């Protein structure tokens, strides 16, 4: 029985590093599995492109390392056959690809991510699909330990494997002194997030004036929460005050400043994008710098992220849940799975922006690492091996997660598919126009309609109750009029819920 499976693609690794490089990686993997064994956990490496291994598991070997469909099917076969407590994907997306989920909020040029890349489907029992609505019930503990895209020598990956092998849990106190960084314009939202996670926001740093270096050692604490701007293929995050966007953090500024055991939740757009820094000849991503210096886990987004103006929502929430679960003693993999489930559970219906958020946030790090040691309320009697007891408790937790995920899959209404808008009723037209006015948008905004799938059927007649889900969503993205005095125009994304021809609710996501 294997507790943890490490999946990778041998031919992709050989293509990058040669057989000598692969041998070096295998040595590091042997050290990791030996360290896991000492912790009472049985680990095994599975090469997804190995025909014999995959056949034994009732699956098909991956022939094309960059094909998401093949990798998803192979990982599903691993779960069906072994059902591990942890699945660690070893390698960047040029070794094991991210899944290519459609971005339901795709609306070029306003949201030009045609895909919401990520690892969410690997954490779900549903078969390969590009529809994010199929993956609202994750059940599997999954994380990715990435190498560098395009790398030709394996020292980076070997260093990460060494960190995972040598990790140690610490007391919660070691994670309460946090690094909290926010674009100055988002101070309200970030303050709320820090209060929710740490019980205070006293250490909140605003950019500007903070950044891009932290000579006072502020980065040298183990819990990080960052809510700044980010861009594609960029080794920088940015703050914002008015129309200025000063650099708030760079890959370079993190070098020598991230302490071993750090866990980060990062809301920035593209905060966990694993871009090809080698071909581009630029600094590697900030997320990969964190891991190189001994960070245990990093939760971030592969693409453009969303959040509301003065409150918490979307990216804020999934990041908060992750850190809260880590502080509560969960492994980083379970913390990420719980965060995904909690995000879905606490959202009445998954609108296109919620679906993108769920799809785009990825966990980087060995999912079996427990940064925080929390004493258990359940004692283990003498004569019972600690490893066996822990395996039993883990199985209990996994069973609970499986039930929760399955329930979400069966019950959560989603809106990922565009529906023919048809002719808007005069009531709907007026309501949308009024909400657009509230958001600062013009009356002639163009709306995209989304059908709601999975809503419970409401009984008719005397026993009829109020519907619990709308029949359609309308979304629009635009720039408020009247803000043209600022060089930087602030846009909004508006989501309105329609029930039986009437708009019954709405949300407005502001640029933050």
């Amino acid at each position, binding site marked *: 029985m294997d507790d943890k499976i490490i999946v990778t693609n041998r031919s992709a690794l050989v293509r990058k590093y040669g057989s000598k490089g692969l041998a070096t990686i295998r040595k590091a993997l042997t050290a990791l599995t030996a360290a896991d064994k000492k912790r009472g956990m049985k680990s095994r490496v599975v090469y997804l492109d190995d025909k014999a291994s995959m056949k034994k598991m009732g699956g098909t070997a991956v022939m094309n390392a*960059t094909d998401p469909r093949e990798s998803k099917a192979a990982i599903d076969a691993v779960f069906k056959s072994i059902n591990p407590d942890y699945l660690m994907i070893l390698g*960047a*997306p*040029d070794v094991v*690809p*991210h899944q290519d989920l459609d971005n339901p909020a795709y609306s*070029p*040029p*306003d*949201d*030009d*991510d045609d*895909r919401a*890349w990520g690892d969410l489907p690997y954490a779900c029992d549903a078969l390969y699909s590009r529809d994010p609505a199929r993956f609202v019930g994750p059940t599997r503990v999954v994380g990715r330990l990435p190498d560098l895209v395009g790398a030709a020598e394996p020292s980076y990956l070997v260093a990460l494997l060494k960190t995972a092998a040598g990790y140690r849990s610490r007391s919660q106190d070691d994670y309460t002194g946090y690094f909290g960084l926010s674009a100055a314009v988002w101070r309200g939202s970030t303050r709320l997030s820090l209060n929710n996670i740490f019980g205070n926001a006293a250490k909140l740093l605003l950019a500007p004036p903070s950044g891009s270096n932290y000579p006072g050692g502020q980065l040298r604490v183990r819990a990080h929460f960052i809510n700044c*701007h*980010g*861009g*594609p*293929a*960029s080794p*920088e995050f*940015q703050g914002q005050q008015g*129309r*200025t*966007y000063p*650099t708030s953090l760079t890959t370079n500024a993190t070098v020598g400043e991230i302490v071993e055991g750090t866990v980060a939740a990062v*809301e*920035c*757009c593209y905060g966990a*994008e*694993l*871009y*090809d820094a080698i*071909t*581009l*000849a*630029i600094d590697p991503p900030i997320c990969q710098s964190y891991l190189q210096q001994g960070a245990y886990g990093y939760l971030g987004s*592969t*693409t*453009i*992220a*969303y*959040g509301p103006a003065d409150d918490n929502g979307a*990216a804020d929430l999934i990041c908060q849940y992750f850190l809260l679960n880590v502080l509560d003693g969960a492994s980083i993999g379970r913390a990420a799975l719980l965060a995904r489930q909690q995000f879905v559970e606490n959202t009445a219906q998954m609108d296109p922006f919620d679906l993108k958020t769920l799809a785009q946030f990825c966990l980087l790090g060995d999912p079996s690492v427990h940064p925080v040691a929390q004493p258990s309320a359940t004692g283990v009697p003498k004569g019972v091996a600690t490893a066996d007891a822990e395996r039993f408790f883990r199985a209990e937790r996994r069973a609970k997660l499986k039930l929760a995920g399955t329930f979400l899959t069966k019950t959560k209404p989603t809106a990922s598919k565009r529906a023919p808008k048809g002719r808007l009723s005069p009531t709907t037209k007026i309501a949308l126009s009024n909400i657009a006015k509230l958001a600062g948008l013009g009356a002639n905004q163009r709306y995209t309609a989304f059908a709601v799938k999975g809503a419970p059927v409401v009984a008719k007649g005397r026993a009829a109750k109020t519907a619990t889900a709308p029949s359609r969503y309308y979304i629009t*993205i*635009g*720039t408020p009029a009247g803000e043209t005095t600022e*060089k*930087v*125009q*602030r*846009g*909004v*994304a*508006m989501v309105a819920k329609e029930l039986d021809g009437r708009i019954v609710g709405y949300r407005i*996501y*502001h*640029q*933050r």
Partner: protein
Amino acid sequence: MSSTPPQRVTALHGRVIRGVYGKGSKSEREAVFIETPDARYVLRRKTGPVFGDTELTRYVGHEIECDGFVVGTTLLAERIEVVE
């Protein structure tokens, strides 16, 4: 894979304009774009800042030729030359 692998481009021609990038997202901002006959890309200097690169403003309204990499919908320019 994840995102589009970088594609090297040489002597790419296009007109530089200003526009809004990422409307409604956490990173909405005014950006500089290059419009080619086939596509519109966010224009960035490879070594320049992601946001508010004032160096790029002098190209706005001009036809340019550049070398660099296309990554998704962004052009990371290594060389920019005004041709008009």
